[in-house]
Structure formats: C-alpha cells, structure tokens
C-alpha cells in the first residue's frame, strides 16, 4: 500500500496508507461518531465535498451491500479511517469497503489517529484539508490547500437534474431533491406515497401544477443560503400545500420564513443526538448530519420551535403557526441510526389528510 498524507489547514499532517481510489482531493474535514452505518454515511449526499472522518476505529467490518445505499453516486470527497477491515463478514455483503471506495472513485486514508483528528476539528472547528499521495512537495500542497476556495454549489452537484416518478397508490408527494437520501423515499414509499422527485431548482409554479398532497423538502449539503431559488419556491407554496422539511430542507423552510442560519463550529454528525420534542417532553435519539443550524435568536413570529437538542439547545425542529408545515434538523428517516423519530413521517401523513379535509 502506498503512503498518503492528510494535510490540515492548520498545518497538521497525518501520514497513513492509501485506501480506495487513487486521487488527490481537497474538501472540508468533518467527523462522524456513528459506530455502524458507514455505507449509508458515505453515500449520504449531505457529505458532498467533505472529507469524512470516522471516529469508530475499524470501518468496513460488514462490507458493503446492495441495500444500504443512500444515493447511487456518492459525492463525499474522501474518507479517513483508523483501520479498514480486511476480511469483512456479513450475509448481505457484496464487496469490501476498499472495493466500494474504488468503485465509487472515492479516495481514503487508513492508519491515522482519527481521535486526534477529531479533537483538532472539535477544537478548531471544521477546516479545509487535502488528501494526497505522499510526495516531496508538502509545502506546495499546503499553500495550494490554503488558497483553495471550496465550492458553494454542492446542492446543484448533488440534486437530480430531471424530475422522475416513484409511483405508488397513495398520497401524491413532490419530493424536492437537494441531495436526498434514499431513506426518505423509502419511508414515504412504505406509507404508499405516490412520489415525484424534482430537481432542487424546480419553481413553485411547476410544483403547484402537479397538485400534490404534500411537498417533502429533503436533506442536502452545504450552506442553505447558497440555494436562494429554493427559499423563494418555499415562500410561494407554503400555506397552499402541506410541507415537511428534513435537514437542509428544514433550514430552507426556516429561512423562507425569515429565520437566520449560522455555521456551527463542528456540526452534528452521528446518531446519538438526543432531541426533545418540546410539546410532549419526549426524547428521541436521532441521526444527524449538518454543519449549519437555524438560529433560535430572533426567530420570526410565524415559526415556533418544536424540537431542541438537549445538550447544546440548538434548534432541531420548527412548525409554522398558521400553515400546515413543519421541519426537523435531524433525520427521522434514520439510515444510519436509530428509528426513534420515524413517527414524524406519520405526522406528515396526518397533516396532508387533515389539510385535504
């Protein structure tokens, strides 16, 4: 195995062995604390452009299977692991972790102190990093890294470019794809929704013309303020159609109603985030992957906070006071992570049914 370097914006360099595809990349360095679910995480489009560090030290134990993809073409930039399992074992396994990364053209590095990396990110916040072949030009690579401006069009590169249907017999739902996870479609399909998935920049007019029972605003990567067209769309459809937003969809829904978003120091990535539903006091463990959050300060009159993270009190869900619309920061669709909050999809069904009446 050849040597690879993970170069951090703050100057720290980690040397490890190469894993996956053989290419040099630069992206935003983040960490995920899940102990399982690497296949779902890597294929989660919300990691678009990011270098994903797994805090759990052995990754790839059960290989990669045909079922657990969250997108067909993952756009995560690279992965950082302490150790990649060399002999995965699971009845559903199709290929090893390394084979998967190669097939999806994702480079990786193994044999590095992922806990130390996590602590750096925790202390300094998410930062740029490069994953490169070990060569004698580290300084050059460092200056290149520092000069790199990370793209802001992640949603564009993650979203579908054309609309497509996922037919079923139930309620008609338009799913606006900002980089959706298949699990959202799975949860809706499980409830027999007749789906049409549309690109992120579909206009309100086009959506309204489809006369859906509801609109699902999906998760996606990056800064929500980079997608102003979606904010405009939401402003126009809310009140006319029931809306359910997840993750980036939640941030966009909040922005559309006048809330502010901010970049978190190192985000929430993992699935042990405890979230309290304010109305009932119920606490669920939720799957999360976001680097931006909705600010609780100066929250517009029209929105009420429905969910908070119990440790940092960050906003985890809002509801419109007058319109049939709500959104959550976390993933009730799980995958990976606990299924505790899947009831929110049922709530969405009720919301659509009640609105119809």
């Amino acid at each position: 195995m050849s040597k690879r370097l993970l170069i951090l914006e703050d100057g720290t360099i980690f040397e490890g062995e190469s894993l996956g595809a053989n290419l040099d990349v630069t992206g935003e360095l983040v960490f995920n604390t899940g102990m399982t679910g690497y296949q779902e995480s890597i294929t989660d489009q919300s990691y678009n452009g990011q270098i994903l560090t797994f805090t759990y030290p052995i990754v790839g134990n059960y290989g990669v299977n045909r079922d657990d993809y969250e997108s067909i073409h993952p756009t995560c930039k690279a992965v950082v692991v302490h150790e990649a399992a060399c002999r995965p074992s699971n009845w559903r396994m199709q290929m090893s972790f390394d084979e998967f990364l190669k097939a999806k053209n994702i480079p990786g590095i193994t044999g590095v102190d992922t806990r130390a990396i996590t602590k750096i990110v925790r202390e300094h916040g998410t930062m740029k990093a490069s994953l490169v072949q070990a060569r004698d030009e580290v300084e050059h690579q460092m200056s290149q890294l520092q000069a790199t401006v990370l793209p802001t069009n992640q949603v564009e590169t993650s979203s579908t470019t054309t609309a497509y249907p996922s037919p079923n017999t139930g309620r008609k739902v338009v799913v606006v794809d900002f980089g959706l996870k298949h699990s959202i479609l799975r949860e809706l399909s499980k409830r027999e929704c007749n789906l049409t998935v549309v690109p992120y920049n579909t206009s309100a007019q086009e959506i309204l013309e489809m006369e859906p029972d509801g609109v699902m605003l999906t998760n996606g990567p990056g800064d929500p303020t980079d997608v102003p067209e979606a904010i405009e769309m939401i402003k126009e459809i809310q009140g006319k159609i029931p809306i359910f937003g997840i993750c980036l969809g939640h941030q966009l829904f909040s922005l559309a109603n006048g809330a502010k978003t901010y970049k978190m120091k190192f985000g929430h990535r993992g699935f042990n985030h405890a979230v309290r539903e304010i109305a009932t006091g119920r606490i669920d463990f939720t799957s999360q992957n976001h680097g931006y959050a909705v600010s609780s300060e100066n929250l517009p009159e029209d929105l009420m906070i429905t969910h908070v993270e119990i440790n940092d009190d960050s906003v985890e869900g809002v509801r419109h006071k007058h319109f049939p619309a709500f959104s959550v920061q976390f993933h009730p669709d799980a995958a990976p992570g606990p299924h505790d909050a899947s009831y929110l999809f049922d709530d969405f069904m009720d919301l659509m049914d009640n609105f119809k009446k």
Partner: protein
Amino acid sequence: MPKRNDIKKIMIIGSGPIIIGQAAEFDYAGTQACLALKEEGYEVVLVNSNPATIMTDREIADTVYIEPITLEFVSKILRKERPDALLPTLGGQTGLNMAMELSKIGILEELNVELLGTKLSAIDQAEDRELFKELCERIGEPLCASDIATTVDEAVEIADKIGYPIIVRPAFTMGGTGGGICDTEEELREIVANGLKLSPVTQCLIEESIAGYKEIEYEVMRDSADNAIVVCNMENFDPVGVHTGDSIVFAPSQTLSDNEYQMLRDASLNIIRALKIEGGCNVQLALDPHSYEYRVIEVNPRVSRSSALASKATGYPIAKMSAKIAIGMTLDEIINPVTNKTYAMFEPALDYVVAKIARFPFDKFENGDRHLGTQMKATGEVMAIGRNIEESLLKAVRSLEIGVFHNDLQEAQDADDEILYEKMVKTQDDRLFYVSEAIRRGIPIEEIADLTKIDIFFLDKLLHIVEIEDQLKVNIFEPELLKTAKKNGFSDRQIAKLWNVSPEEVRRRRQENRTIPVYKMVDTCAAEFESSTPYFYSTYEWENESKRSSKEKIIVLGSGPIRIGQGVEFDYATVHCVKALQALGKEAIVINSNPETVSTDFSISDKLYFEPLTFEDVMNIIDLEQPEGVIVQFGGQTAINLAEPLSKAGVKILGTQVEDLDRAEDRDLFEKALQDLEIPQPPGATATNEEEAVANANKIGYPVLIRPSFVLGGRAMEIINNEKDLRDYMNRAVKASPEHPVLVDSYLQGRECEVDAICDGTEVLLPGIMEHIERAGVHSGDSMAVYPPQTFSQEIIDTIVDYTKRLAIGLNCIGMMNIQFVIFEEQVYVIEVNPRASRTVPFLSKVTNIPMAQLATQMILGKNLKDLGYTEGLAETPDMVHVKAPVFSFTKLAKVDSLLGPEMKSTGEAMGSDVTLEKALYKSFEAAKLHMADYGSVLFTVADEDKEETLALAKDFAEIGYSLVATQGTAAFFKENGLYVREVEKLAGGEDEEGTLVEDIRHGRVQAVVNTMGNTRASLTTATDGFRIRQEAISRGIPLFTSLDTVAAILKVMQSRSFTTKNI
C-alpha cells in the same frame, strides 16, 4: 422530574457472598448506588452479609448491617430501621429474590415500605418464563419456541411441532447436566429419557435450537418518563450456547450492519418499555448470521455483570444512574458524570474496541468439567481496551494471568490434530488458544468458521496475528514491523520469543525507535465533547492524552481478575490504599484490568489506567508518569510478583523492600530468617526431585504437607501419608526442578490461626487474631474463622503476638503482613508469612474498626503508629464474636470435588456477628446459605480413622433429636456404641443407585451429610463413591460437611437452639 422529597430513608440489599455468576460487580454497583443516593441527600441503610466489600464500609452508607440476607434477619432490620423505601435491583439476584420474598410475606406493606425502581410485577414478568412469553407475544418480539415435556412421547410431539434440531434442558439439574442438542427423534428420545431421570421434578424443556446464531447483548436503561437509552451493545465471539459470562465478548458489536444494530436496538427498547423497567436492564438476543431472523434469549431486569462491564467499557455509570432513576429523576435532568457537560440521556459513542475474557477456576479444579454451556463457570473476568480487535484481544489475554502473554498455549501446541479439532468443536474455556493453534497449523479460517460458527471476521483477526508472528520470525529487529506488532497488541515478551532475544532487548529497541504507547481517554463520546475523565488505556498512536500532572504521585497496582484465592478482598484493600493516599495529598494512580471492581471505577482514583498487570504494561505507565514509587502490597500475588522486575528496572517499591519480600516468600531464605529470629516452624525441607522428596519425608516423618514453592491459594498442595502416595504426587502433580522445588513439610494436625499485622519499621500493631474452626489441613481460605479466638490460652496469644512482632521487625516489614500459625500440642509454629495484605483484611478491618489498609498505606508513606494514636501490640478485643464463613460455588461446577483440603476451593465469604459464639456461628452459617434443618436425619459416611471422633458428634445429634443414618461400617460402629442408627447401602462403585444412600439424599430423606475421606489416599471405589455422594448432596442443596470441626460447630449452634428432653 426532580427527585422525590416524600422519602428520606432508603434501604439497599447487597448481593451477599461471592459465588460464580454473582461477583464483585455487585459491590461496584451497590457502592455506586449508595453514594448516588447519599449525594442526593437520602439516608441509606445497607444490608449485606459479605464483609469483603467496599459497600459495607461505614463511609458508603449511613447505616451498615453485615447480617445474613435471609427473611429472618432482613425483616428484623426493616422493623428496626423503618425505611421509607427499599431499592432491590442493585444487589444481583440475591437482592432481588430477597425483595420478592419480603414482598410476598407482606412485611413491606405492613411497614409501609415502598419498592423503588423497577416494579416487582415487571421483574416477575421478565423472570417467569410463561409471563415473559406472553409479553413477547403481545409486543411481537420473537422467543425460541419451547415447551415443557414430562414424558418422552410428549417431548417428541413438541419437537415435531418446533422442528429439529432441538435443545433439551432437564429442569433443575446441576450445571444443566443431562441436556443436549438432538438432530433426530432417536437422539431426542435418548436424551430426554436420561434427562427426565436426572431431573428431580421429571421435567425437560424442549426448545428450538438456535445454535450458530450470533449472541448479542444490549445494556439499556429507562426512566419513569419513558426515556430509554442503549448504553452499549456487545457481541460474543462465541456463538449462542456459551453463557455470556463465559464468552469472549467485544464491545461494541463488530459484525452487525447498521440495519441489524438498529433492529436489535428497537427490540431491546421495545421490551424494556413494555416491562416498564425503571433503571438498568440487560437484554440478550440471538441473531441469525444468514438473515434478519432474531430471537430474544432473556432479560435481566436489574443491574448485572454485563452492566458493570458496559459501564467500564463506555465510562457510563449504569448503577449510579439506576439509583437516581429509582428516586424519580429522569435521564434528561441528570448530568453525564463523564463529560460533566452533557446529559445522562445519551448513548455513548465508542472510539475503541473493548474485549472481555472470562477467568476460569480450572487451574485449581483440574478435574472440573471444562465444557462451556448455559451454566456460567468463570469466577472473574478481564477487560482490555485497544484501537483494534487484535490489540484489545491480546491485551486481554495477557491480563488473564494464566501464564500466557499471547494467544499461544503450550498444551495447544502439543495437541495432535484430533484433539485440536475436538477442542475447537466442543467449547471449553481454552478454545481461543486451540483455534489460534489451528490457524497456525494452516487450517483455513473458512473451515474453522464452519466448525465453530465463530464469525470469520474474528477468525481473520486471529489469522492477522499469526501473519504478524510469521513476519516477525523472518524479519528480526525490523522497526516498522515492530511498530505493526505493537499496534496489534503484541507483548514485548512474545516479540522477544519470536526474535529469540530477551524482552528487555525488545523494550530497548522499541524505545530507540520511539515505539512507545500513548494513552487515550475513555470519554463516552468519541472525543466529540471535551471531557476530563481520568480514565485511560494504552495504544500505539499519534497523540498522547494522558498528561502528567505536577502533583506527587504514587501508582497502586490492582489485583487483576477474580479467581479462587484472590478475590474481591484485594480490591477492597486497593481502594482503601487509594483513599489513604488521597488523604495524604498524593495523586493516586490505579492500574488494573478487572471490569467488575470498585477500583476500576474512574471516580475512585485520581487516574485510572485500564491495563494488563504485566511488567511491560506497568512499566510503560511508569515511564510516562514518573511516580514517587509503586505500592504492591494490596494487589495480592499479582502485584507482589511485579515487585522484583519493577525494582530491577529501577522503580522504587514503597513499603517492604523486595529483598524482604523474598525473605518471606523464598523457602530457604524464610527458613533462615525464622532460625535467626528463633521462631519454630513445622520441620520441612525442599526437594528438587522425587528421590530427594522421599528422603526428606522419611526424615521429617509422615504425614507431610507437600506443595510447589511460590503458589497462591494452596494450588497443588496435598497431605501425604506414605511413600507410595508421595511418589505418585511427584509424578502427577508437579514437575519439580532446581528452579521450581517442591516443599515437604511435617503436617501438624493442630489448630490454625492467622494474624494480619501492620508495621512502621519499629512498632507492630496486631488488629486481631483469627482462630480457625477447622484444624490444619483445610486451607485457611476455606476455614471458618472466629475473632477473637475462643480456645487459646493467654500464653499462646502472647506467643503469637511475640512471634508476629519479631517477624514484622525481622523481615523489615513496612506496611502489612499476614502470618499463619499452627498450634500443636500447645506449641506455636509459623506456617507461612505473606508480606502483603491478605484476604482477611476487610473482615478484620470491619470487626476491629481499624482501617487496616489505610493505616498500612500511611506506614508505607513513612508515618508511624504512635503518631497516629495506635499502641503497639494486640489491639483491644471487643465484646462481640465474629465468624467468617467460606462460601462455595460447587453447584455451578460439574465434576469438581467439594471435599475440603489444603487447596482453596471457596469463591466468597460471609460474616456472622453476635454476642455469643453460637449465635455468631448460626448467623454465619445462615449467611453462607448453609441452613441446617431443625430436625430430621443426619447421614454419616466417614473414614475409619474418623469413626471415634464422629461417634461423639453423632451422640450429640441424637441427643437433640436428630435421627442417624450411616453406611455399613459407620453404622456398625455406632450400634456397637449403643446408638440407634438406620443403615443404608453403600454405592460400592456400582452404577445402580437404587436403594443406596444416594437415593436417600436425592429424595430428601436426609437433612445433612457428613462425609470424610481421612488422610490416607482412599481406594478408587471409596474415592469415587465419596465424590458421588458429595455431588448428590451439593446438587440437592443439602448441607454437606467434609470436616468434623465444621460439624462440631454446627452442632454447637443446633444445641444452643434446642431444648433437651431428659427423664428425671
């Protein structure tokens, strides 16, 4: 919800004496719970019969009762204390069962005592097979299909319904004897027929077989607001079928995809919500390795051994949180004590791998049945933390202290292929080593996976270890490879072996290339949040997180896994040493490898290193911490054994110096020391071969006590009466050599006693003398001990005090020592000296109210007795009488002989205290669960040489109304002497038990069994007969006495409780 203010006083019931399946973990849980309740301002009353626990310290609860955990005594305490509530779920099955009994007789209702935590109805629902089945059916959780059969035909019918293979479990047989897996009806008929015969209730459970399924555990918690969390999940290396307490276990699960993980998480939470558990709970599940099929195996509705493991594996204190939940608090308002920032409503994220391996007693019980099944057999366990499977597994292996430093066992190397295959398929305690050996022999891991059903993922890790071994063998001194080996958990010793150099050489090369370990923190959150937990493990990585403080620091070595001879007593002493160090303003650093104990609770010490207790691992920490010194006196033989290598490496050993430790432990040096001090010992000599042993024995005179040097707990020790047996012993039991001599001592059949002494170098304090009930020949750990002595003259006591002083001063003891004496014909002899804290420290500390381990620690740090207000000599004796009784786990161990002798066999101890010896004895028997019926029959079957002595005892039994039953010889002798006795048939080696005394025992026709074998090696028939008789008594729970002294003691109790009937 905030804590409840309507209750003020809470009673906690402990788990009693340590037995297999219920060990130190409940001291850890109970201690945490008591402290948590006190922290919240409640008054805590504690009942536990086990003095060797931290929880029974006065500082832990407000009021402590060391009394038997029986209805009689707990009711009495309830009436006296009138607590508002009782918290029953922290004292293991013992505490829980006691609470159930109390509830059933109505005393809780009568006294208006509320049960806190999980409701009894829920506990019933979880523990009663039928109720649990109903519950699971209702909530849609799958159990193994099963039914009870009372005839063979019934069994066949049930099996046809369920489908083969089928598991048969006979009801109430010892260790599940008679059960098995059947693939066909023919096999089923055979096994059930036999099983029904063995079962005292003629019942067999016929169950669907899930052999080959993965065994997965979830440690879950729930509060009264229905918040529920998974603290940790764990995956067994061994598939379903081996008790999880005996399995090698990894945390978190390793081969489960997220789908499977979440599916089982949902099932676990579904179950605890349905049960309405309030506190900790353990859910065991079986997962098909080829589909999403799973079965719920069982639920433990309380804190358990697994929850202690999960607490140590994650840092999340389950017992503490359970106690807080019990008083009404909810997880979202309790702060996570690890981060001190986040809430307890949190599912820990691990960024390391934890391995647990069980410690078995088969080094002591050579004839014990080593096959593993649903009956737990381990006495203790070790845990190790690493950044990969290989590292944590190998660290755990070398923590076991079974003489191996790698997954490499000589016996496995020596085994032929046939034995190797058998050992792989029929799971025994040492399977890991045979599987590893199979891989070394090139057997493909696919084949091994097929044979053993161990997941290939784990086998590949073993293969990886073997591959590194192979590379090391051909790449001597290669620095990159050395690094790889260290990252994968290889010990310096193993690398040295493969390189054919000394471990010191490996260590030197490691240090040269800076291949030294770093220490990572256990923080519950995978570094996502800043933590300040002083809880560390070593690994070979980039960043070291354990920062050396500027405080003066001292390292205390723990005692490793609990085994027979080295139990929780040593953890007690370790914890007290830490407390004393802290009181003196030192930073106390603990190194230990046992997840069950209080000493490995990170809140006890200033810094905890969860590491193997080997020279290498300890030395690495010393290199980093640069302590003032290391204390080795409290960690049993484990710590003492490290004194010499550490001292050689230039480490300062605090307290008694290594030369002096040697003078106590080395036979020749010790003999010389005794001669110099003019203290007599039983005549003896060392021998390095058979002929020398025979010559020495002839010189000394039979009987002789023979044993290898340097052993703990009397391993391989025997009393020998003649040359033939001696020669047999020399060939069978030991491999004597000049390096490993055997000791041949005159066996003086006198009264034994022991003392623990504390010495500051000039003055010696004896907190007390403990007299043993059983005469010399029964290991001191298996003897009942009485404090203060009841039969010694003042002269003898003075002599003991005098010898103790001379020995302590003469051996330059600084700190603590333990001395065993035998008194033979009014002459006091020293049998042995242990230059360290002994297993009697907690008992004696509690009955004398002298905090011995703390005091000894102060001596070690240079304080003196006088300044601390102690007068030298024997401390004043209080009015009460205290008895320590041993407790055994024979019911868990098939084929282990319960006959007491010089080899220690007990797993725990209980204490009884009262104003008279008889009352104290009664309590100690009750606390040890040796309950003698008030009337009935006593069966005698004794050796010829014991007949005379037995006669006197039998007479006394008859006098207070017991009937006598005896085998032929004994019966004839009794009759000759005018006693009425019913004669029963001997077994006489026969298969047929009908009409024999075994039937009498089985059908409850006798209420106690007295069986002695004498000192002469019995004939094979007599020996096996005796063994079968004892087994029968043990499995039927009938009091069994193998020492006439114990019989005399219980007789004393029964006499004091009965009235005589005498004509006038």
